[in-house]
């Protein structure tokens, strides 16, 4: 199995997530797009680990993927708490409305 397929799929998912981050206005949908980008990176790490370096004793690619899953879970928790606070304070979760700290 060639690493070309997984790498191209990961690139496609990353770019779809990037499109979502730029184009969406709803803060929860922006968080969903960030999740897509993180998962694309996970596919890359696992493909490199299992297809190119299968003899690595430290299983670095897989450990990085597990750490990314943990950090992404923490990010979603804190991000949704911030979105709820924003909704309570401004009655809107439009990211274009949040310009309080804009220069």
């Amino acid at each position, binding site marked *: 199995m060639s690493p070309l397929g997984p790498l191209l799929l990961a690139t496609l998912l990353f770019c779809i997530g990037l499109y979502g981050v730029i184009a969406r206005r709803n803060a929860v949908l922006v968080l969903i797009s960030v999740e897509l980008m993180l998962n694309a990176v996970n596919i890359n790490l696992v493909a490199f680990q*299992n297809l190119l370096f299968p003899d690595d004793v430290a299983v670095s690619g897989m450990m990085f993927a597990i750490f990314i899953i943990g950090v992404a879970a923490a990010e979603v928790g804190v991000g949704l708490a911030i979105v709820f606070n924003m909704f309570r304070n401004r009655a809107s979760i439009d990211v274009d409305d949040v310009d309080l700290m804009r220069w």
Partner: protein
Amino acid sequence: MTGHDVIFVLIGLLTASAAILTVTSKNLVHAALFLAVTLAGIAGVFLTLAADFLALVQLLVYVGAVAVLFLFGLMLTRAPIGREALDNQNRGLAIAVSGGLFVLLSTLIIGAVSSGALGETSVAEVTGPRIEDIGIATFAEWVLPFEVLSMLLLAALIGAIVLARPESGESGEEAEVTRIEMGDAPASEGPQPLPDGSAPELTSGKRSEGSS
């Protein structure tokens, strides 16, 4: 092209189309459900890459917890439905940036793989590390990052609870003031007296004016 590759291509097509529907869907709940399909498809990709443990972790953490968390997030916040309300004016810019990045990256990847810069690329049979190897590596070589990650999760848990509590000191008082300005904010549990005692009259006056 072996049967393994055919299965990978099918799962990849499913994952990619679900991801495109996630970022283009007009319905918020549909977007979250398509995200769950995408994450399950990525778990399938992990299975075809012989990473069984990671596929199960993906199903547990993402499809089980994160997708449900996003559904709660969408249902607890009220947002208008429709493309104009969900997308901003940057769609052309977004398509240009992400499409350009995709063309650039895929050109680089295809060039690197076909020129042999990655070494022996075509593996006959995909093999992954056993779960024992992953466990031994976790607690032998990666034990310090592992413990730091556990502290990060604890801090994120406490931070999320403190941020999401309704009566969290400064932000709670600020919420009362902003609700009066917006007019269509969610109903509160009645006017609450502020320390100086002047705000409750203002609150009730504004509210009756808005309803009449």
